[in-house]
């Protein structure tokens, strides 16, 4: 794993609070599970119909009937449960999931999210992402701050088709943490040696800077 991704995951795992129900998206978010401290009592929800994802199985315990939403073989933790897909999304839409951590392609300054299609490329489908961003109590997006060309993925308006409008609560990148509030996007933290100036340089959307961050940065 690149250090960039490692850094994002290390920061994202701090969002996971003891005693909560958490849904992790496919890809980089799934890896967060490996970093959750063992003393935290967390139930991971998998939208294919499992509450309480356990670790990957030992070779002899691999079970084709027990997979996560990424179609990987998993185990079930003690106290876990199985259910059908309608029930699974009733949990999501009904507001029973405390936190969802998903990947992103673009996020706008208003907290719009695009993470499911690139026009002109083969469209694979949105899976459960559109339901999850509308239903989870808190939606945290993790993504690299810029694309391969070095352009900002945090846009004034998303250019890609949306997954949801104004659905992002918090955005974590390799450089910064932003919150989305009724008055706009707020820079909460700078990460991994970046400073406010660098973040401004690589962020297309406009944002304000959290008072506590100004105090911290000012002292440096």
């Amino acid at each position, binding site marked *: 794993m690149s250090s960039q991704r490692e850094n994002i995951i290390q920061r994202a795992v701090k969002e996971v609070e003891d005693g909560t129900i958490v849904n992790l998206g496919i890809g980089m978010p799934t890896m967060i599970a490996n970093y959750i401290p063992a003393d935290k009592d967390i139930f991971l929800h998998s939208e294919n119909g499992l509450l309480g994802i356990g670790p990957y199985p030992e070779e002899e315990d691999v079970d084709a009937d027990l997979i996560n939403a990424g179609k990987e073989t998993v185990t079930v933790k003690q106290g876990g449960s199985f259910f059908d*897909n309608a029930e699974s999304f009733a949990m999501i839409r009904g507001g029973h999931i405390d936190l969802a951590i998903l990947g992103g392609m673009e996020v706008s300054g208003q907290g719009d999210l695009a993470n499911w299609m690139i026009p002109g490329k083969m469209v694979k489908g949105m899976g459960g992402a559109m339901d999850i961003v509308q239903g989870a109590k808190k939606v945290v997006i993790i993504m690299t701050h810029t694309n391969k060309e070095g352009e900002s993925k945090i846009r004034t308006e998303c250019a890609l088709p949306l997954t949801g409008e104004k659905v992002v609560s918090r955005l974590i990148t390799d450089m910064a943490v932003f919150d989305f509030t009724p008055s706009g996007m707020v820079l909460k933290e700078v990460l991994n040696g970046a400073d406010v100036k660098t973040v401004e340089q690589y962020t297309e959307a406009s944002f304000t800077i959290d008072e506590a961050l100004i105090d911290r940065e000012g002292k440096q």
Partner: protein
Amino acid sequence: MTKVQTSFEESVARIQDGATLIVGGFGLCGIPEKAIQALAEKGTKNLTVVSNNCGVNDWGLGLLLENKQINKMVASYVGENKIFEEQYLNGELEVELVPQGTLAERIRAGGAGIPGFYTPTGVGTPIAEGKEHKVIGGRQCILEEAIQGDAALVKAWKGDAYGNLIYRKTARNFNPLAAAAGKFTIAEVEELVDVGELDPDFIHTPSLYVQHLLVGTSYEKRIERKTVQQA
């Protein structure tokens, strides 16, 4: 009133060309592999298939794609299948992408006799285009319509002659929803047990949803992504 049948070939022959077919499974987990194989052999054409995914190139619903038996696919995620991509790009296959929770609820509603429902899922996205919008409880929603199938294919773990079914672990997924939403539901099971053996408290699909029940043998249960503990 036994629903037990012995020939997959005869059961799937009840499905007409042009039928709408709801198929259980999530990826390759919990798919009705025997009925799909029989349908591929039968060659029933112009199907509209409603299923979360569309199998892989040489397995599951991918077998029906390979035979060009599917005209339209209604699914939430179809990224695992190259043939799908080809047929879609050259216009042979119509595709309706539906958010997974909306897909599950549309099938559930179909089985439950609810014509449609409002949901915030998809508002502000391409999914909402052309759909009725309505603000409910201060929240913008769109109208989504129920899905019913002329037939449904489902896979369960155990069943009895009346058609009571129980599923195993995450192989449940869309199967109970499909069973209820199909006008003619063909259920295949790994094990047929005596009537009375299944505890009524633990039946997932009550018998009345099932029309034909067949026992499959030597299930392959292919795994898409085998992940194990790092040594």
